[in-house]
């Protein structure tokens, strides 16, 4: 891959087609863990790691098991099982190896299984039918896009606590409207092209 291709892919995954704000994948953790910047940071790191690892694993499953056996219709079932097993493995590894990080991630780690960004990136990669390196890189960059949106949003939300808004907007509604304004800013990147 040329460096131009790399830059185009990064811009696409992080800004133009941001997983959260443009593709609507991974909204649950985006809204759920964005109240504090430090938990948002922990979650972002975990998601980037799981997305990258999961896309490597699902690429292998797709290429060496599903396609040779002609059972592509088992894709959804196979992918979700691989992702669940992987998350479980990561959890067990972190618990033994880095207990501090394991504790700080808490409940968010098992919840990554049901983060649609992870299954989403696996499905997008399978549809594109790209090579191993390309798929893993795309997953990593998409994870970075998720992290970027989550960190931006959590820092806005921290300031939002001191803002005044109508009572009915308490909690999620005001967060959604804020996310809408953030998404509006991201639509500015549509059609962005360097090369």
């Amino acid at each position, binding site marked *: 891959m040329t460096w131009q291709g790399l830059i185009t892919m990064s811009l696409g995954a992080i800004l133009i087609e941001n997983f959260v*704000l*443009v*593709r*609507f*994948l*991974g*909204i*649950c953790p985006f*809204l759920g863990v964005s109240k504090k910047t430090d938990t948002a940071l922990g979650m972002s790191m975990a998601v980037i790691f799981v997305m990258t690892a999961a896309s490597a694993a699902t690429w292998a499953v797709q290429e060496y098991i599903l396609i040779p056996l002609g059972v592509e*219709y*088992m*894709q*959804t*079932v196979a992918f*979700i*099982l691989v992702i*669940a097993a992987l998350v479980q493995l990561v959890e067990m590894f972190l618990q033994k190896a880095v207990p501090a990080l394991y504790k700080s991630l808490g409940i968010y780690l098992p919840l990554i*299984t*049901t*983060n*649609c960004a992870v*299954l*989403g990136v696996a*499905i*997008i990669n399978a*549809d594109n039918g790209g090579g191993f390196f390309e798929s893993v890189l795309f997953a990593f960059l998409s994870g970075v896009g998720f992290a970027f949106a989550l960190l931006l949003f959590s820092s806005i939300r921290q300031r939002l606590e001191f803002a005044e808004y*109508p*009572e*009915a*907007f*308490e*909690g*999620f*509604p*005001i*967060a*959604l*409207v804020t*996310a*809408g*304004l953030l*998404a*509006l800013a*991201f*639509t500015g990147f549509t059609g962005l092209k360097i090369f």
Partner: protein
Amino acid sequence: MTQTMRQFKNGLVDQNPTLVLLLGMCPTLAVSTSLTNAVGMGLAATAVLICSNVVISALRKLIPDKIRIAAFVVVIAGFVTAVDYLLQAFAPALSDSLGMFIPLIVVNCIILARAEAFASKNGVVRSAIDGLAMGMGFTMALIFVAAVRELLSAGTLFEFTILPDAFPKIDIMGQPPGGFIVLGVVIAVMQAVRNRSKAKNAAGL
């Protein structure tokens, strides 16, 4: 009979999965650009929800406690695959416009949440009713959001023109930012109504 009524009230109003419990946000935001998509998505998710609730409830005594989540996910993924292929065969246009959000029903938290919270503890008939009620609640929320977005962005409902051409079309409502803002306002309205009825009840007592 009264218990059935209560289940429906729970699914549609008191514990509406989307507007009150705030589950399944991704599909709500992504497919609510038009009413046709919203209804298609709602019905697909409802079908999966009913089927998976019935099977999980029937197997609830056989599934070991430790691996129950994995077992639930496999059951759900099986039905999602079936729905995905049925839509591709019989409603290809809808299947195209919903795209990857059909396979993503697997990770829709509503379905796993109902399997864990209801179907694994209740009988088959009750679980089927619960699936229907919750699915209707999800579909209803999707329809609310999609109706507002389609009307404001294209001036149509189910592709029939409603607003006159002179009415300005707000393109942004059909795009991602509009999804967030409309859903936020719909949930705010829901909260305002509930706050008011709570205040009324408190005054009555």
